[in-house]
């Protein structure tokens, strides 16, 4: 039987008891060498001007220049859009998976993660094959069904990029939500019903609030991955500009490494804010 109470032991205390500190040494060393040091290096590069002095000019232009602001906004909006669509698609799927699928749940989970087993390049080209000018979809619409007289321009548009991102990221959302839904005692929902709540109210009063944690976790995952996505946008985005694409450009075209560093720091800040937000969410619930 699942325990639905929210008792939480202080994580800090438990961690201290787990193991002698020296066991963490390899992991710490690894993180220092491959994460902390590059990060510091990157941060330094973003504030050292080409002539060797200290400068914040790159950040100033990134955060004041309309062009850059638009790119940052576009990056965040794209990720937010992908996240919201993923929630709207993922929640019903997760609900069905946990509450209705029964013995088919294994199959559904397989179908969900199957796309993750193919490489991102293959998947992206798959979308192109589907939506190209003479691709499967247009073929069907124009030649087979004759609904359209000329093929639609479907690839190379933000919509297709969003669809492709949602396609890969929805499984993360579904699994995050399903895990939490699984832990909700159905008798809580039954209690609400007996007390006069119809199905819709039961959902909004009990099921949804109790599954917010899963939505939160899924949203953070999806948002952060979408935020850093690159290949999908390069191949399908139709010239849409986001921070990762700009960083790539700085390296390859402009060769302005300082600017690329500053941009990646901004990207990092967005990601960290996300994590912080999630932490807040969890803590609020633990009252």
């Amino acid at each position, binding site marked *: 039987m699942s325990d*639905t*109470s929210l008792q939480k032991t202080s994580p800090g205390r438990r961690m201290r008891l787990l193991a002698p500190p020296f066991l963490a040494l390899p992991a710490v060393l690894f993180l220092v060498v491959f994460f902390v040091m590059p990060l510091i290096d990157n941060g330094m590069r973003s504030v050292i001007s080409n002539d060797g002095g200290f400068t914040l000019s790159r950040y100033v232009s990134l955060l004041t220049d309309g062009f850059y602001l638009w790119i940052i906004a576009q990056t965040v909006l794209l990720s937010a859009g992908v996240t919201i669509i993923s929630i709207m698609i993922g929640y019903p799927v997760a609900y069905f998976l946990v509450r209705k699928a029964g013995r088919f749940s294994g199959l559904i989970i397989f179908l969900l993660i199957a796309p993750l087993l193919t490489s991102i390049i293959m998947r992206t080209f798959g979308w192109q094959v589907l939506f190209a000018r003479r691709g499967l979809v247009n073929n069907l619409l124009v030649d087979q069904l004759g609904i359209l007289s000329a093929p639609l321009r479907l690839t190379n548009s933000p919509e297709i990029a969003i669809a492709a991102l949602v396609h890969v990221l929805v499984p993360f959302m579904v699994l995050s939500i399903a895990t939490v839904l699984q832990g909700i005692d159905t*008798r809580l929902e039954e*209690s609400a*019903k007996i007390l*006069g709540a119809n199905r819709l109210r039961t959902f909004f009063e009990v099921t949804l609030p109790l599954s917010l944690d899963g939505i939160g976790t899924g949203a953070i995952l999806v948002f952060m991955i979408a935020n850093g996505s690159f290949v999908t946008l390069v191949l399908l985005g139709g010239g849409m500009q986001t921070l990762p694409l700009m960083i790539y450009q700085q390296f390859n075209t402009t060769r302005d490494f300082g600017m690329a560093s500053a941009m990646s720091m901004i990207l990092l800040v967005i990601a960290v804010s996300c994590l912080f937000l999630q932490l807040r969410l969890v803590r609020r619930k633990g009252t």
Partner: protein
Amino acid sequence: MTVVGARLNKGLVLTGIHKSYGKVAAVKNLDLHVDDGELVALLGPSGCGKTTTLRMVAGFETPDAGTIEIDGEEISALPPHKRRLGMVFQNYSLFPHRTVAENIGFGLRMAGMAKSARDAKINEMLDLVQLQGRGDVYPSKLSGGQQQRVALARSLVVNPKVLLLDEPLGALDKSLRESMQFEIRGMQRRLGITALLVTHDQEEAMSMADKVAVMNGGRILQIGAPADIYDRPKSRFVAEFLGASNIYEGHVSDDGGSLVTPGPQGPVRLHLPEAQKAGQSLLLSVRPERMVLTLGEASAGLAARVVGAVFRGNYAAYQVEVPALGRELFVYRQADGPLGSTTYHLGQVVTLDWAAQDGVIVSAE
């Protein structure tokens, strides 16, 4: 034309209820009447269909056949939220994301009651379950007993037509369970609420219910007042499930006055509570606490030897071996020996007997 018909049956009436899960028949042709203001306990072993019956009343399961009426109104077609019931689960099922007060006020809010009226009712309920001033805490901060009281308050505050209790005390420890039995019973009586209790604990059923319905295999075997069911079990199952019983099998003697039961040293005659038709096969049940032991051999009764003696506080349980019957029987006696021991001891030779009217004839079911 008379207008009596429809409103005749106050309370909860189940008629011909049947429910199968695939090939498993969980409830079979069940009839049950819980009178207005009465508390009936469904008592039975695990898997006998108690919860299924309760869930059909609640509307979480649909019966395959039969009708469910409350105060004369057929409710089978209504969804759970329109049935105006209260339900308490074994694991309390309080909403963890809502405070105690919000939990109690949930049903009122669903009914559309204004906040001020709601708050007054919530405070009234908090008083009733002795949780004054705890309205703002979250359920996880309360003890099991307190949580169950909140669950009770939450289901009672909406003034339900029928209160459904599914093993409401199963998660509590024994001493708390006993005091909660009184508390729930007291509250149900005071509010005059019709209630259906599901339990597999016979003590709980007997101490809380006006009537106990003993279930087995999806059927109600017997229903009646606790004392009645205990003292006059109709079937072997009821006699053995409710308390303990010594059961004797045999046929009625030619004079109709005793039961002849086979034994290793030849047939043994046991007295019957009343004369029976000669020759028929019968089962006779005698409660262990109705058996009388005397030290040594006596002219009447069965010679026996004590092979087990257990001190149980207010009484002692003995296991005695009866050579004439070739089996062992159970005897409970009031603890009346010297303090610190049982009255009889292992190996002692005793004589076993009971008053003829203390035997009960039961069916083999």
